[in-house]
């Protein structure tokens, strides 16, 4: 009897989701779309940056260097500038990102005085782009100087031979596939469950459920099971897409990877349940998930921005962010190809957090019922 009742309740909850094709479509489309955006749109590579040339000299050498810059593929000279004031104008209108200024008598200074000056002025309102572009420009100019001197490499020098570990081609996919996974799992499990449970509370139907013969644990379990399946389904989609479309390697054990994903889903669920016990309305639940979970976890988990670069306080704070441990375990297993010995710490921390959140919500839940 009890078993049947629970099964019926579960079926009802599944139907809730399936009868809402819009949400279902978004749930399935979202990871695909996010992977495409991260894979093709968000990149730090810069090519064909629009630049302006302020050539006070306009001789053969400055023209040659301008051609060299244009031929490098990094720069696209779109504008010639004639006065100092025009630089500011060009930047303010957002026409160009960088201005190259040649001093007067450029070629003459180069040959007679052995030294010609070029100024590189960047629009540093985008600091990263500015410093990358300035580096590119300097590199092109250095090569140009060496060519002019017809001398290849000097006699002896101290060289660095670099090897990029794990990711020889510096592909961004190594960051964004694990990152997308965190985003989607957090969204579906933590946010959706917290809202779906709060909804019953807000509409008053929770009390009806509570007076039914179903035990509270069964109600919660029935509520979250559909989301667990959805989340797991999405995990598989993301992994498959990462593997087939973007060529992300899976160097470690698949079973261990799925286990880690499953633990993280449980962790996110426990967070969702905790939020639902804390909030009275769906709007509050949503804002709590949105502001307290999504944005900081995206930014403090080391998904986009390396944790080591943050101020110390935020580094400590990131220790308390569940996705941080999940991401670290994911990368260790998938990309570094290590086994259990290297991720047991992450697994233990995630399990500990799950237990903590669950215990906290059980305590809060009881208080509310009394």
């Amino acid at each position, binding site marked *: 009897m009890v078993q049947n009742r629970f099964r019926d309740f579960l079926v009802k909850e599944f139907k809730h989701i399936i009868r*809402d094709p*819009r*949400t279902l479509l978004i749930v399935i489309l979202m990871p695909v779309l996010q992977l495409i*955006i991260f894979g*093709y*749109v*968000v990149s*730090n590579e*810069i090519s064909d940056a629009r630049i302006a040339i302020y050539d006070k000299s306009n001789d053969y050498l400055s023209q040659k*260097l301008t051609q060299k810059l244009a031929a490098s593929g990094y720069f696209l000279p779109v504008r010639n500038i004639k006065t100092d004031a025009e630089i500011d104008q060009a930047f*303010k*209108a*957002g026409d160009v990102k960088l201005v190259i200024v040649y001093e007067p008598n450029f070629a003459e200074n180069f040959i007679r005085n*052995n*030294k010609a000056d*070029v100024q*590189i*002025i*960047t629009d540093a*309102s*985008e*600091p*990263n*782009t500015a410093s990358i572009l300035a580096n590119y420009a*300097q590199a092109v*100019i250095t090569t*140009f100087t060496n060519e002019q001197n017809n*001398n290849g490499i*000097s*006699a*002896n*020098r*101290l060289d*660095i*031979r*670099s090897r*990029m*570990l794990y990711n020889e081609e510096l592909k*961004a996919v*190594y*960051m964004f596939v694990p990152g997308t996974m965190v985003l989607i799992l957090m*969204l579906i499990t933590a*946010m*959706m469950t917290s809202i779906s449970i709060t*909804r019953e509370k807000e509409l008053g139907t929770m009390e009806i459920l509570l007076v039914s013969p179903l035990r509270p644990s069964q109600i919660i379990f029935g509520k979250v099971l559909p989301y667990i399946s959805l989340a797991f389904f999405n995990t598989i989609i993301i992994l498959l897409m990462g593997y087939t479309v973007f060529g992300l390697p899976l160097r470690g054990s698949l079973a261990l990877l799925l286990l880690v994903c499953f633990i993280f889903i449980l962790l996110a669920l426990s967070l969702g349940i905790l939020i639902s016990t804390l909030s009275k309305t*769906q709007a509050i639940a949503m*804002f709590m998930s*949105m*502001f307290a979970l999504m944005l*900081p976890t995206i*930014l403090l988990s080391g998904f*986009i*921005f*390396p944790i*080591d*670069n943050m101020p110390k306080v*935020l580094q400590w*704070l990131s220790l308390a962010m569940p996705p941080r441990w999940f991401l*670290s375990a994911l990368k260790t297993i998938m*990309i570094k190809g290590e086994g259990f010995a290297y991720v047991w710490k992450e697994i233990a921390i995630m399990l500990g957090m799950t237990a903590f959140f669950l215990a906290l919500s059980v305590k809060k839940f009881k208080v509310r019922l009394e």
Partner: protein
Amino acid sequence: MLPIVQLLILANAATQEMKNINLAVVDFDNSKTSRELINAFVNSPFYTIIPVKQSVNSAMDKVHNSQADAILVIEDDFEEKIVKSENVELQLLVNAINGTAASLINGYTSSIVAGYSAKIGIQNVEQFKPAIATKVRHWYNPELNYKLYMVPGILVILVTVVGMFLTALNIVREKELGTIEQINVTPIKRYQFIVGKLIPFWIIALFELAFGLLIARLVFNLTIAGSIPLLFGFASIYLLVALSGGLILSTAADNQQQVMFMSYFFMILFILMSGLFTSTESMPQWAQLFNKINPLYYFMDVNRMVILKGSNFADIKVQFGFISILALLTLTWAVLRYRKTSS
């Protein structure tokens, strides 16, 4: 209050400068010269030297468990070769899971080694050849402070989230509780209902922007280079788009979970495409085309232009035109979509 906490945390977390590189040095030479080179790294504020045993494997172990970002290997004939003025090669192994960070680490390390090699005076024949001296100047943000770049971007997101989500949720909530039926039976006109719903959130969002700018001024010392009325003028038109967007979404949803989910979906899409972290110009053609209808793209752009560079109206008139058209379209759409009769 929460948005302000967000602003403070996000602006500090969202940095792509490399400030702390954990470098494991495997020094097989262990000579005076090699220790001098290591000292060049010790003296740099960007590096922390991770102590390792004299073996590449034990250093690799540090990379595996993420204690070290990179390994520098100095061969045992390092000093000998330098004394004999032969070519010396150092090996650098970088954890490249994060490609951007890896190339920055590579760049920093190379420049420190180059600085060291210049210092110990490895013969540089090029000194007597003509050279082109480059001088780099970074305008508007000379110290390349990443926070100044992120704060206007984060403000855009905060204002949008507050505007769009609140509107959408508010109306769907009325639907859920059934109070919208009560409004529908009153003689209120469609546009009156919509204007009445929009204005409070419009004011809240603008207030949010003002408050955010104030905090940015106090905490990050971010001064607005351009005209404040211009900034708010643009923001108020932009908000019409965001709020109508929320309204349109609310007409398409039956409950708050749905509308929240849809808003989230569109937000993520628009935010990531808008160039919050990366320059939109290096995006593929189709993405740039998409951005023509992306309101966040315009506001992101204008916010940075006016706040950081002090652009004036003439500089942003194109964006102004586009956002006004978008505002007109979305408002009309919102009014048309809203029905007083429930299906």
